[in-house]
């Protein structure tokens, strides 16, 4: 295999990882909410807010950390809103989510216009890629795995944490029970309401981190609707990943890789109509569902409000 090919593949893999992370954070967020029985269809909106406030914080204070915190705070607030409507008011989680999406699109756009109304948008300070010193320059490995900013690795760590929490802690067991059958959980003395609130707020925070990832590591600029539908893909990544953190990771990598592959093919200029190339990730997802995912079992109480008499 000649050098050109190797570079192509290396680029592709590194790119796949970068493309997956902005899906991974919201997917994990959505997963956590859904495991507790609440559908988070607000991921897209929460990403947008994360992206905007991440950008804003970093650009105002010059510290991406403060940006990240502001982004997460915004996500937490939206999470709180969704938690309230779905847990206390028991109204449609789907539609509240859609509403949060539209609202966030608007509010971020509006605020963005307030801070900059002239042509030259101002750059935010980005998180640098971690410098692994010598390791970084290991040919293939270095380029693929050691060329990213800390948030990328944080994403992977989150996967491990979530998996550990779900399957290796008592609170994780109770947590999953809440999503399977709140009444059973309650009879076992588990506080359904608290668990669900936590879940949804955390999911908001994670989703907003996904957004902040875009403006704090990928591009230094916020643009209206920068999340560009990733929040929706994230929702399918959850099902594709069979509601399991590791599965979700694979699903996000699949989407990322497919998207990256699609770009690589464009670079090769094979004369395939670009629309078909852009379809690849979506078709892949469907094939994956049929191929090796099969029947997915969602948490039994997902989307169902818990009524106590």
């Amino acid at each position: 295999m000649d050098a050109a090919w190797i570079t192509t593949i290396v680029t592709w893999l590194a790119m796949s990882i970068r493309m997956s992370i902005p899906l991974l954070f919201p997917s994990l967020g959505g997963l956590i909410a859904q495991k507790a029985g609440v559908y988070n269809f607000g991921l897209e909106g929460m990403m947008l807010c994360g992206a905007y406030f991440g950008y804003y914080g970093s650009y105002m204070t010059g510290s991406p950390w403060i940006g990240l915190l502001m982004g997460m705070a915004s996500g937490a607030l939206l999470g709180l809103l969704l938690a309230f409507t779905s847990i206390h008011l028991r109204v449609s989680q789907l539609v509240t989510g859609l509403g949060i999406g539209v609202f966030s699109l608007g509010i971020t756009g509006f605020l963005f216009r307030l801070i900059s109304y002239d042509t030259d948008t101002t750059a935010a300070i980005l998180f640098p890629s971690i410098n692994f010193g010598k390791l970084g320059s290991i040919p293939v490995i270095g380029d693929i795995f050691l060329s990213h900013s800390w948030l990328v690795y944080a994403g992977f760590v989150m996967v491990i944490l979530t998996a550990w929490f779900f399957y290796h802690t008592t609170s994780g067991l109770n947590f999953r029970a809440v999503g399977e059958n709140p009444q059973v959980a309650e009879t076992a003395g588990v506080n359904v309401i608290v668990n669900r609130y936590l879940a949804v707020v955390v999911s908001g925070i994670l989703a907003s981190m996904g957004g902040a990832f875009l403006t704090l590591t990928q591009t230094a600029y916020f643009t209206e609707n920068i999340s560009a539908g990733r929040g929706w893909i994230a929702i399918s990544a959850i099902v594709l990943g069979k509601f399991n953190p590791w599965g979700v990771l694979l699903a996000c990598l699949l989407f990322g890789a497919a998207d990256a592959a699609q770009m690589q093919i464009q670079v090769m200029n094979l004369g395939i109509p670009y629309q078909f190339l852009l379809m690849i990730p979506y078709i892949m997802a469907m094939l994956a569902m049929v191929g090796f995912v099969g029947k997915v079992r969602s948490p039994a109480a997902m989307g169902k409000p818990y009524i106590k008499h």
Partner: protein
Amino acid sequence: MAEEFYLSFRNIRKSFPGVLALDDVSLDIYKGQIHALLGENGAGKSTLMNILYGLYHQDSGEIYFEGEKYTQNTPKNAIKHGIGMIHQHFMLIPNFTVLENLILGQSSPNPPKLEKEYFRQEILKVAEKFGITVDLDLLVEEISVGMQQKIEILKALYKGAELLILDEPTSVLTPQESQELFKMLLDLNQKGTTIIFISHKLKEVMQISNRISVLRDGKLITTLTKEDTTPNELSRLMVGREITSRYEKSSEACGETVLVIDDISLVDHHNHQRHLLKNVNLNVCRGEIVGIAGVDENGQKELAEIISGLRKPTSGKILMFGQDVTNYSTRQLIEMGLSYIPSDRRNQGLVMDFKISENAILETHYQKPFTKGISLQKKVINQFADNLISEYDVRTPSINVPVKNLSGGNQQKVIVGREFLKKTHILLVMQPTWGLDVGAIEFVHRKLLEARENGVTVLLISTDLEEVRKLADRIFVIYEGEIVGQADSTSDVEEIGLMMAGSHRQYR
């Protein structure tokens, strides 16, 4: 005055949309006693207990527990106060393992880690102590209802309680299993555990309880001590009339054979070595009740599904009125006059979110008179449903109530009514009286006998040996998918019991 009692309910009132479930109920429980709650379906037994345990909240009234006013009734608090409850509808999560279900809510020895192995040991100890054998690693959805019941019991025993509530714990146990349970209960009671026991089976109540309270229509009728009452009095108090427990039926010779089960076998999809059913042969005559006795999960469900066209056998034939119907669809069979009362009312028999009226026409909706041309006839349907709830005594504010809001007993009556009210030649009934009160049971039994008189062919599948012996002309015993023996109402209970348990067989 409340002080002297261990537990006191004072003027408890609880209403659900359109239903007054508990109407000013006051009840006292002595420490160290076994106190039984009796009452018709929908009388309010479960609701009262669910309130104590904190699943529901009373609209008004107080609870006094160990001399103090017990205000914060939540499950968490109940557990803290040493109240344990075995719920009527199993509080188990189907796609969690048995172990996970048992650990749920327990605090780990070294948090936050989930010490599965530690719990496994602990639980196995308890299980052993009470002689319960369980595979902790199976998913709950994979185990039989009877087993699930035992898991519920184990859960309560493991968590340990000073006050143990059991809501219809025996409804799916075999007589032997029930006896084992009672041994445990008495044992616990010796050690000072107070027990509240809900059951529809008067024998059991008389056997183990010290005091007995009767609820009717959400009101407390009376509380008696076992010594100064009798089963007949109790049933009169519950239902308001005498209940006969013996039926005499005309013994007529077998007419034409209507239903032939010809050498049916069914192989397990997942494990081809395993037979769910093995060479089952049966002939059922017109106007005869054939009972199939057996411990739960010995192939009864599969047999019923094959007869009703929901499953195809691996080999063998089903004949009805002489035609081979093995490959008929369920609808075709229904149209031929097959009626089926499945055992799982909540998942198989009813659509819980549908109104009573809609559930009443689940199978016949497309036929005249319910459908004319392309449209459903609301009026006709409602009349039909109204007639059903009055004739079958379904306790509900209206036919527009979703059946999920009915007490399970009343849910069952809806199914029974539906199946009896449509044209029926062959009646396939499975566990027709699970969770029913004595009145309702007698009612269903009478209906079955009535059908028999009218020449309907009845195949009665039940784990309740008493029931089978009472009703069936001929009894077959099924064990691990095979018919292992035949008997009749005169045969010796012991022998049948042994066959059910698989430790004895007539056929080879």
